[in-house]
């Protein structure tokens, strides 16, 4: 039988506020365990939460960027469960009245354009982190708890089950990540855990309207694992259905190293969270003018930016698509563009040299050493003929490593292009003398030989000779022989 896969996502995004959601502890990563804590986020008896207004602002901004309705009345609820990383034995979250609902993202795949619905976005607090002294909490002799993350603000973005392939999911996540990044409310980095995705996946025979039973898969920490898990789950569920079995509703966890999912818990024992309205926090009332103020503050979103790059800067759609997928890349592009006019040349360098280096070295785009002004300067040096394109790549590599200015690098390493005719003539004499065979070939009408001779001269000049000048002088010399 042919099956259609139905996929929805729950995405947790860590908000980039300076302080936690209900206290004034810093949210910085990497502190010594239990140093970013206070009585409130430790849930000590008698303490009370106070909502960080920035969290509300960021959640609304994310909602607006994702085309959501913003609730003028929403509230917090308690999600009760026992776990050592949860300091109060409940997580403060939003249950039935989330801050945002009914949004969407438009995505584009090989199959065309598609709108993926956003069901809701709600605010909540993160939990602490368990450090097991053995492998898991059940087998370890003891566990340590670090509450630095406890109370870090999150938004949970829930999509409609609108996606039908891994490709669509990856496209959805890419777009979502870019939009969130553009709003500035989060770094949205999956590898660092500031964007986490759970996937709900079910199968149904092609043509059937009702959804099949779904499995929820957690613990996906890269786009690659999202792709892999979807393929794995499709295969697993097809196998079950084909052998006459039934998929059970459960939460499964992805094991990246083994490339498979494991059952964590079935529906029956997971859904008893005893939600009820958080009595320590009054309802959140948001005024219309506040929403409009935030809407006005939103930067241009990827879609609009892309359109503008194509229409105004004259970039091909492909280039615009790649550059706008990352806020940091767009910012870099824009900054170079303010100093340098040829958009296509910038985009060639970004998509070629820059991204190759970034990917090869695994560097974060917003941690680049090379500055946009330096990039513009490099392009200008190529245009003015002071260095060749080939040398420019060498200079770029150095700039990427060190953040030094291209002019300094060129001066220090003596990479300036040689256009001086006297110097070039000497090189030409030498090469012509040592390659009589090629000279004869040229004389006999084999124009290919010219290219070989130019190459030899370039080699001798370590790439610094000006190819156009060499060409002219060489032809003059050969014709005079």
């Amino acid at each position, binding site marked *: 039988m042919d099956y259609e896969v139905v996929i929805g996502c729950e995405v947790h995004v860590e908000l980039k506020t300076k302080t936690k959601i209900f206290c004034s502890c810093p949210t910085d990563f990497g502190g010594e365990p239990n140093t970013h804590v206070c*009585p409130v986020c430790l849930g*000590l008896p008698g303490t*009370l939460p106070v909502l960080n207004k920035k969290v509300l602002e960021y959640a609304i901004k994310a909602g607006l960027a994702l085309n959501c309705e913003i609730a003028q009345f929403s509230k917090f609820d308690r999600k009760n469960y*026992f776990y050592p990383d949860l300091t109060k034995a409940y997580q403060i979250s939003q249950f039935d009245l989330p801050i945002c609902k009914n949004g969407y993202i438009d995505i584009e795949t090989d199959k065309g354009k598609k709108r993926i619905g956003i069901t809701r976005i709600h605010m909540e607090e993160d939990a602490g982190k368990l450090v097991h002294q053995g492998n898991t909490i059940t087998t370890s002799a003891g*566990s340590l708890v670090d509450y630095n993350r406890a109370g870090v603000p999150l938004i949970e973005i829930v999509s409609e089950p609108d996606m039908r392939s891994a490709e669509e999911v990856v496209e959805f996540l890419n777009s979502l990540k870019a939009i969130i990044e553009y709003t500035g409310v989060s770094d949205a980095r999956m590898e660092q855990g500031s964007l986490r995705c759970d996937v709900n996946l079910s199968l149904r025979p092609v043509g059937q309207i009702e959804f099949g039973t779904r499995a929820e898969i957690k613990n996906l920490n890269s786009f690659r694992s999202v792709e892999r898990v979807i393929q794995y789950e499709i295969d697993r569920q097809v196998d079950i259905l084909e052998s006459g079995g039934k998929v059970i509703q459960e939460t499964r966890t992805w094991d990246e190293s083994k490339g498979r999912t494991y059952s964590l818990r079935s529906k029956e024992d997971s859904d008893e969270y*005893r939600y*009820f309205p958080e009595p320590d926090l009054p309802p959140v009332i948001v005024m219309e003018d506040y929403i409009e103020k935030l809407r006005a503050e939103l930067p241009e979103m990827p879609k609009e930016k892309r359109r503008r790059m194509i229409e105004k800067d004259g970039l091909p759609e492909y280039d615009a698509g790649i550059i706008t997928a990352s806020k940091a890349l767009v910012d870099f592009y824009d900054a170079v563009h303010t100093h340098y006019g040829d958009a296509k040349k910038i985009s060639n360098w970004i998509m070629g040299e820059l991204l190759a280096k970034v990917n090869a070295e695994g560097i974060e785009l917003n941690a680049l050493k090379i500055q946009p002004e330096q990039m513009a300067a490099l392009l200008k040096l190529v245009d003015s003929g002071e260095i060749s394109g080939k040398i420019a790549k060498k200079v770029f590599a150095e700039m990427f490593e060190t953040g030094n200015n291209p002019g300094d690098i060129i001066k220090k390493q003596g990479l300036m292009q040689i256009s001086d005719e006297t110097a070039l003539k000497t090189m030409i004499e030498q090469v012509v003398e040592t390659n009589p065979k090629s000279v004869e070939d040229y004389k006999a009408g084999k124009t290919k030989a010219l290219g070989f001779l130019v190459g030899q001269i370039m080699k001798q000049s370590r790439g610094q000779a000006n190819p156009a000048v060499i060409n002219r002088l060489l032809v003059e010399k050969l014709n005079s022989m």
Partner: protein
Amino acid sequence: MTISRLTIHELHELLIKKEISATELTKEHLDRIRRLDSNVKAYITVTDELALKQAEAVDKKLAAGEKIGMLAGIPMSVKDNLCTEGIQTSCASRMLEGFKPQYNATVLEKLKAEDFVMLGKVNMDEFAMGSTTENSAFFHTRNPWNPDCVPGGSSGGSAASVAADLAVYSLGSDTGGSIRQPAAFCGVIGLKPTYGAVSRFGLIAFASSLDQIGPLAKDVTDIALIMNAISGYDKKDSTSANCNYPDYTASLNKSIKGMRIGLPKEYLGEGIDSDVEAQVLAAASKLEDLGAHVEECSLPHTRYAMPAYYLIAPAEASSNLGRYDGVRYGLRVQAKDVASMFCETRKQGFGPEVKRRIMLGTYALSSGYYDAYYLKALKVRNLVKQDYDKAFTQYDCLITPTAPTTALRKGNNQNPLTLYKSDICTIPTNLAGIPGLSLPYGVDRNGMPIGVQLLGKAFTEPALLQVAYSLEQNTSLTRLKPNQGKGI
């Protein structure tokens, strides 16, 4: 005249006239605690060193000719569910035995700014759940009027310490009557302020939407003085009201002539002890004598308040008490794995009444029961609130009994349902978030004090204090003292 019998404002006069020093006053109270608290058993922790240090600081100020606040140098007691920095705050539970908070409750910070003197932390029902203080995991507190009777609860230690002159005043907390009922049982005054008028930061939560800190004291003026110190907006408590707070003493002397006072019929009759009812009616008629208009009125949803309360309060408690899991502080019972450690810790750390309410609350919030219980209870809560709203369009305040009976006998309070009924007159107040004041008004056939309750619209404490003050000034029935021979 024994100085330990005096009120805050009386003692303040003596202090500023230098007729007594804060240190002498504190020593006198500490001495009484040493001699007499073995009979009353109000105190869990006596902080004598701290008290003397605080008193000394006040004496220094007095010696330097500095002006001191009304509460400066006045020795008092604190219910053991209010966080005191570096001092055990146990909630009278094995679970928090030895727990020393790193912070003061906001009310204590405010009192500290007033140069208060804290004598110690007083007994209560475990986690404020109970009406007798017999649910303390440590020991029972006795009623200073009769050692065979309970002091009421859950702020039993607070009420008993004030009644036995082991503290000039006390801070308690009231979730369903826990200040007012013990105040009535012990013959002192107790005020549950409007929800949001006093910061809950540092009050170890029982039921967050109902809990409120308030004073227990020997006269109405003292209650007003304490309210001046402890009320006010606190940015650490998001449910605290950001509004203007009055001088609570300002209205005391105003005449109650023309005031409209309602006498809700649902609070009288069946289930109310006849002596109690008689005193409530006597107080009502005294108010008429003083120029108020008193008439019967109706709060038709009163009888649903108790079942609603016993769903909402346990539901919140079941969540609030989840954090006592042995992981971070308080009791931890070692076990083979983390789940067993949770279970064993909670099994050994909590007493039976706390467990009962956690079970009740967990059940009420469970999926499939939420709508039928918790949600319905919220609707009832709304109806109860509406009853009051309606009544307060016609009346400036209401007068009722504080409790259906006077102090219960010790030791035969095993039936929870019977006990829950002793809060029947106080519970609706917390559901509605309005203020309630219990004022002693005479004694019953056994010589035990009777409390009448005054209820008002949110933030009308000044009106309640005004009515209470006029009763206090015009009868001798409000300032009662236990028979020292028979009691302690």
